[in-house]
């Protein structure tokens, strides 16, 4: 089983490389290098902070677009091309196929994010080396702060969750609708804290209870955001990172299970 899942995953990764998905890394590098020069002209010695903010946010945004736009096409493309018939006629279980697709995209995102983290550290190192005054002005956190990795880790888990959402919708819906649903959930997932405290804006206990239930049911994306904290050099508790990552991975696994279920029951005739 593992071999087949691995093969499917490897082909997804290869396909994304062939589709020039990793070209976004070039855009990311250009963005960072250009920003590191331009921002120096615009800010009052806050270059390091802003480059960190920009690097982390750009990694999250680029990853989000890859996760959604590739994720929604993962299964749909195979069905649309009718290559799914060929694949499923072989000794490949449907849920292995879905798992392989998911792991392949997660692998692409991991490679992508690792390269972006490397590029961000590289740009920061060059800035600190070429302009020591900037490094000195960065009073809140060291320039090459290892805490940035905590933010990258949670961005990665967040992207795994987005991939699971996109894949889940792609098992039964068109890419356009799947992308809309995935973006919608991503946005709503930033407001779960408001839903949890809905009783402060409505009198109805039932509505407040439903909102609270929704706040647990919907993916809580805001909890993955530790970007500002790490940029300001604040310690993010290891327990918090572990629990949040665990939450994201469990939620993703649950969605993957649902995706397998839907795809497993789908009639291709």
């Amino acid at each position, binding site marked *: 089983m593992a071999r087949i899942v691995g093969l499917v995953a490897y082909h997804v990764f290869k396909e994304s490389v062939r589709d020039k998905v990793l070209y976004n890394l070039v855009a990311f590098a250009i963005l960072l290098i250009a920003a590191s020069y331009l*921002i120096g002209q*615009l*800010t*009052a*010695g*806050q270059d390091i*902070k*802003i480059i960190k*903010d*920009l690097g*982390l*946010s750009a990694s*999250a*945004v680029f990853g989000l677009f890859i996760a959604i736009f590739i994720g929604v096409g993962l299964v749909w493309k195979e069905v649309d091309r009718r290559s799914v018939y060929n694949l499923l006629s072989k000794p490949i279980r449907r849920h292995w196929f879905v798992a392989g697709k998911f792991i392949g995209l997660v692998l692409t995102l991991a490679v992508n994010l690792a390269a972006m983290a490397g590029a961000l550290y590289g740009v920061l190192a060059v800035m600190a080396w070429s302009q020591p*005054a900037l490094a*000195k*002005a960065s*009073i*809140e956190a060291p320039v090459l702060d290892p805490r940035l990795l905590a933010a990258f880790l949670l961005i990665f888990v967040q992207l795994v969750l987005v991939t699971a959402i996109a894949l889940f919708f792609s098992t039964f819906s068109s890419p356009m609708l799947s992308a809309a649903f995935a973006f919608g959930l*991503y*946005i709503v997932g*930033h*407001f779960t804290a408001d839903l949890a405290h809905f009783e402060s804006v409505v009198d109805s206990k039932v509505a407040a209870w439903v909102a609270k239930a929704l706040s647990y049911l919907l993916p809580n*994306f*805001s909890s*993955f*955001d530790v*970007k*500002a*904290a790490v*940029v*300001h050099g*604040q310690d993010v508790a290891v327990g918090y990172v572990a629990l949040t990552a665990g939450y994201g991975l469990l939620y993703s696994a649950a969605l993957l299970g649902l995706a397998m279920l839907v795809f497993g029951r789908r009639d291709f005739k």
Partner: protein
Amino acid sequence: MSAGAADGRPGVRTIVATAGVSALLFVLAVGLQAARDARYTVATPAPAVLYLRSGSWASRLALSYDALLADVYWIRALQHFGETRLSKAPDKQYGLLYPLLDLTTSLDPGFTLAYRFGAIFLAEPFPDGPGRPDQAVALLERGLRAEPDRWQYAMDAGFVYYWWVQDFDKASAWFERAGRMAGAPWWLRTLAATILAQGGDRASSRRLWRELYETADHEWLKNNAELRLVQMDALDQIDALAAVLVRYSNATGRPPGSWREVIVAGLLPGVPVDPTGVPYVLDASRPGGVTVSRESRLFPLPATLLKKGSPPS
């Protein structure tokens, strides 16, 4: 096409020709725009507008990109302050400065320098700033609500009351509060006591800025403290020049109309210049009859300290 390859894809010649034509068309378009701009009045950019003023709304709309949006608003605040400050317009408007800083700090409550620099910008008197020490203190109080242990915010509020409002009781209270916070330098509490006892005399001002200069953790804050110290030196020089002008008036029965008259009278070796190298200006309306030029980096000098100098030597 003859230049095309057998499989229908364009050949090298076709690619080069197409790229050349595209480049030519692009150059023509740019040239046309330049010609139009030279002939017709170019539309002036619309005045800066802040569509979103609520920090909490901005934070919601930013999703998890609050810090990046805060950076954007911070850059806008810097641009707005710098652009307005450099503007020669008589009716300068700094109206967007506080809302921009408010948005910046709402989106990123840990943005330390936005509070600290923002307070300096807001307190700066017109025309170099909006002259709103009340907003400067309000911004710093917000910073203290976000980070109650950040003694620098309390110290900066003390500076605003000391330097711009000249309310020495409040300044002393803020310095005392800052001095009691963990990690604050020892001199804040002694300074609080000195200010309470002596008010805003030049000696305690000099000490205050000297301490800030030596302990500043940011180049910009250090430069600001250095500028204030140089202003103190200029105030001492103005006192000395005022004494010279008094001697001239006593000798001739009238104040001098120009530095040349004082030089010809043998009271000065040449036109006196301030510590930045810009000549001082005779101004009968000012205490002592001398002030720094508007062209000088030291303009304007703190008004109260003009009258509170040590005796000229």
